[in-house]
């Protein structure tokens, strides 16, 4: 073999070996084979597996399923369901307006750091956030004051949010990025945005898009931050139909109108005439437009961060999957399809796969519709 031929063979072998290694890494990270292999190894060692589900890569979540990774879904559901911070809503709104920050973000931060227990109105901030808040509050503010006065803590958080917001003022979603930076650090978020844009992602400002590019130390925090970010996003939710329509069946246990037994109702029923416009409650993507024996014609919309909404018993859908939608977009006309006792919209809201009560969250721009006892 000549020297040239030998060189060619060596180069070819190097390339092929490199491809085998790269391909193996891609298989582990981007396909179900990786989680399956880790599950098998964990089982052989007698350890429980806490990574992404093998099914997650089909759900368009880039292999991550937040609900699976959170310490307990109940925790996220619990603090979302509470939805009432120890600081009165009016006060929070005043504080948010004064600091020119998104009220939903501020509320999510206060809710996240509210301490449950004997004194549920105590807001206990982590030390770094506490320090930043004190720096931005009037001189002379002490940690003890911050810990004993929830309203003062809220004002401190609002100022931290406002300072972060100025860093991202030129971005598409300065409020969302400000919240993220408050939790993960401005430098980490900025670095992730830069890399995401360099990777050619048009929606780099979305948390899900640039999450994978967060530096390692911030990436570890991101799992814990997802619940807060989701809570803030839910705080901007719009009601799917006009708020004057009556709610006939709220979320939770109820007497089933057909089966005459007590059953858990995983959503809210709103009595609306056939043909009533149904709107998108948040920005998101239609992931399925289909028909079902139980739910009739329905739409499933993913809003990111583990948030999902399902609109059931529709007369007709005006959109199809996949399609990006924006808050307030016209999605469908309500109907009476599927297993239904009358024209109504069944609206289900899920967080990390768990149904949550949309009434407890309220809806931006409209008061919470009055709930009426279900009529048989």
């Amino acid at each position, binding site marked *: 073999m000549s020297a040239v031929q030998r060189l060619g*063979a*060596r*180069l*070819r*072998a*190097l*390339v*092929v*070996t*490199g*491809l*085998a290694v*790269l*391909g*193996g890494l*891609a*298989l582990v*990270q*981007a*396909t*179900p*084979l990786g989680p399956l292999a880790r599950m098998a190894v964990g089982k052989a060692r007698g350890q429980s597996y806490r990574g992404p589900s*093998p*099914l997650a*890569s*089909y*759900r*368009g979540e*880039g292999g991550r399923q937040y609900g699976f990774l959170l310490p307990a879904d109940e925790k996220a559901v619990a603090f979302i369901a509470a939805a009432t911070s120890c600081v009165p809503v009016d006060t929070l709104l005043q504080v948010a307006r004064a600091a020119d920050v998104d009220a939903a973000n501020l509320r999510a931060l206060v809710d996240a750091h509210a301490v449950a227990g004997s004194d549920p109105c105590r807001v206990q901030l982590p030390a770094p956030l506490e320090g930043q808040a004190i720096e931005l509050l009037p001189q002379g503010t002490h940690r003890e004051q911050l810990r004993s006065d929830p309203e003062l803590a809220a004002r401190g958080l609002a100022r931290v949010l406002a300072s972060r917001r100025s860093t991202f003022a030129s971005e598409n979603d300065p409020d969302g990025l400000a919240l993220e930076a408050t939790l993960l650090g401005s430098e980490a978020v900025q*670095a*992730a945005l*830069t*890399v*995401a*844009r*360099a*990777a*050619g*992602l*048009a929606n780099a400002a979305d948390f899900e898009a640039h999450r*994978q*590019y967060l*530096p390692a130390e911030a990436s570890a925090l991101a799992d814990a931050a997802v619940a807060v970010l989701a809570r803030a996003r839910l705080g901007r939710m719009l009601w799917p139909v006009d708020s004057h329509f009556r709610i006939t069946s709220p979320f939770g246990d109820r007497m089933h109108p*057909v*089966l*005459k037994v007590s*059953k858990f109702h995983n959503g809210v029923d709103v009595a609306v005439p056939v043909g009533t416009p149904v709107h998108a409650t948040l920005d998101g993507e239609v992931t*399925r437009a*289909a*028909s*079902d*024996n*139980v*739910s009739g014609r*329905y739409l*499933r919309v993913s809003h990111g961060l583990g948030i999902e909404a*399902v609109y059931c018993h529709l007369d007709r859908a005006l959109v199809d999957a*996949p399609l*990006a939608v924006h808050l307030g977009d016209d999605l469908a006309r309500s109907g009476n399809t599927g*297993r239904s006792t009358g024209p109504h919209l069944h609206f289900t809201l899920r967080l990390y796969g768990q149904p949550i009560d949309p009434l407890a969250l309220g809806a931006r721009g409209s008061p919470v519709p009055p709930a009426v006892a279900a009529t048989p």
Partner: protein
Amino acid sequence: MALFKVLVVKLPAAVLDGMVALRLLTEPLALVVLILLGVHGAADLFDDLLFTAVDTADRAVDATVRGALDGLAGMDWLQPDTAARWADDEALLIDIDRKEVLAVSLTLVAELLLDLLLLLWCMGGGADASTVVSGASVDDSRLIRGLRRARTRAPGLLRAAALVLAFVLGSLALGRWSSGRVASLLVGPDLGEAIGDVARFAGVLVMGLALLTLVPVVQRRALARAEATTGARWLRALVLPTLVIALLVAELTSGSSARGLWSLVGGGAA
């Protein structure tokens, strides 16, 4: 000087010679991982199809059960309201969430089965047309005989087309994945748009190397047998034009909202 020569010349040469010696292992391994990546890229198509199939089956079961219960009520073997209640019982009707999980689970199973099938075809690609189901005997289990049959008797063109398609998709997927990884490794120095250019170049380089380096392996394992069984000697000549067309299509669709088959190809970093 001697140490320098060893570290810079002889050691790398020895490593590369080792890689050359392992060629018989690394070549099929590289092809296998690309095929598996390609199958996963195509699996997005299965999800919706399987959901429709599950939904259709659910409707059929519901209709059958409801008909049977109505029949029993008609014969006075059951109270009409009891029959209606049982027909509406949620145990008979699978809700959306269970159907979703079922469909996605079936997608995973389908992908794994397709992986197995393509791997069998790929591993058996070196044999010529005269190879029979060798080694099989009445003592072999039905499973073994079935696997041998699947490996050797699939239509040549179908097998070749499936392997080539999976290989091409996998190469494109690996290119995109590599582009994303390179971009993430460049965190730190603020290179701005240069990061994107470097990452995209890296992705195209990986994709190109995968396609060009492993084409002879694909020809040997997939197309040679197809040519032998079908007599179509022109199959191997089709590979490069097909690859060029596939690359052009992938480039034209990348960055669009196209999903399914092109989600890994055109969707940015994995």
